[in-house]
C-alpha cells in the first residue's frame, strides 16, 4: 500500500533530483543577483556560479561590510572575448568559489550603461592599466579603481596573466592601503 502511494511521487521526483545533479555539476546554483536584470549580457549570467551583483549601491555596501575589493566585469553580448571569459572563467566552479570567497562581484553591460563604462575605461587608462573589452577592474569598497586589465584568459599565455594571477595581484595590492592610495582613480558612484 505504502509502495503504491510512493511510486508515482518518486517517479515525479526522480527527474527533479537528476536535474539538480546536472545543475550542480555545471556549477549552476540558484540564480545570482542578476535574475531580474533586463540586459541580455547580465541576464545570461544569472545562473553562473559567481555571485554577481548589478552595478548599484548594494555590492559596495556588502564590500564595506566584508572588507573586500570589488571585482568588476564589463562586457557586451557582441564581444567575443567576453563570451570566452564567461565560458572559461566565470562558469568554472573553482574559480567562482575563489571569487565568491575573496571579492564582491559586479557585472556591467556596456550597451546598457555607456556613460558608466566610459568612466571606468578612462579610470583604468589614467591609472596606466591595460583597458579593453571585457574590462576587468578591481575597486575598493569606497570606489577607488586601483587595479585591472582587459581580457584575462583562464590560463596565462603569450605574456598575458591568467585571471587567477591578476586576481591574486589585486588582493595583494588591496592589502596595502598606501599602494591603493598612490595609484588609483576615485569613481563617481551615483549611477
Amino acid at each position, binding site marked *: 500500500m505504502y509502495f503504491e502511494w510512493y511510486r508515482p511521487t518518486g517517479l515525479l521526483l526522480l527527474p527533479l533530483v537528476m536535474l539538480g545533479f546536472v545543475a550542480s555539476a555545471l556549477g549552476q546554483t540558484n540564480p545570482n543577483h542578476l535574475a531580474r536584470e533586463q540586459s541580455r549580457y547580465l541576464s545570461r549570467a544569472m545562473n553562473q556560479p559567481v555571485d554577481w551583483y548589478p552595478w548599484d549601491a548594494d555590492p559596495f555596501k556588502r564590500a564595506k561590510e566584508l572588507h573586500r575589493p570589488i571585482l568588476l566585469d564589463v562586457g557586451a553580448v*557582441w564581444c*567575443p*572575448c567576453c563570451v570566452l571569459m564567461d565560458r572559461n572563467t566565470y562558469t568554472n566552479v573553482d574559480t567562482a568559489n575563489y571569487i565568491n570567497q575573496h571579492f564582491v562581484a559586479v557585472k556591467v553591460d556596456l550597451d546598457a550603461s555607456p556613460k558608466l563604462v566610459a568612466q571606468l*575605461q*578612462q579610470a583604468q*587608462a589614467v591609472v*596606466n592599466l*591595460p583597458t579593453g573589452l571585457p574590462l576587468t577592474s578591481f575597486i575598493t569598497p569606497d570606489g577607488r579603481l586601483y587595479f585591472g586589465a582587459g*581580457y584575462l584568459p583562464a590560463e596565462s599565455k603569450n605574456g598575458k596573466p591568467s585571471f587567477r594571477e591578476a586576481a591574486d595581484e589585486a588582493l595583494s595590492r588591496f592589502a596595502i592601503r598606501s599602494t591603493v592610495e598612490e595609484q588609483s582613480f576615485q569613481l563617481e558612484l551615483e549611477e
Partner: protein
Amino acid sequence: MKRLVLHFFLLSMLSSPLLFAIDNLKLNSKLDYTSDSLDGPLITGDDAQSGFVPGKPNYVIIYGEGCFNSKRQAQRTVELYNKYRSRVHFVVIDLEIQRSPEQQKLVKQYYKGYIPQVLVLDAYGEALHNQSGEVDSEPIENIFEKALGH
C-alpha cells in the same frame, strides 16, 4: 671635461623619447576588420612609446586592440603616416599595454573613455582636433595642411 659633459647631455637629450616620434610605422597585417577580435597591436613601429614631440604638428591615435573601429582608424593612420611622415609626428597609444609617462600625459589630458580617439596637436601642443570615433583622412589632411602653413 666640459666638452664631455656637453656630449653626455646632448646624447641623453637625443635618446629621450621627448625628441623622437614613432617611426617605421606598420599596420598589423593579420587584422580582421569585420569583428572585435584580438589580433595583437594594431600598429607597430620603432620607438612606439613616444609621446608629444614639439616643433611640428602631432597626430595622436588612442586605440584598443579588440575594437574594429580602432582597426579601421589604424589603417587610415598608417596611410597618413606614409604621406606626412617627414612633416608630422605620429603618436600611437595602445590602451591594452602599459604606457610611457609621455603617453600617459596625453591619456590623462585627453582620453575620455571612448575609442578610437584621434587628436591633432599643433607644434606647441594645442589641440586642433579632438574626436572620439573614426574620422576620415580628408579632414585630418586639411588640418595638417593648415597647421603646416599651406
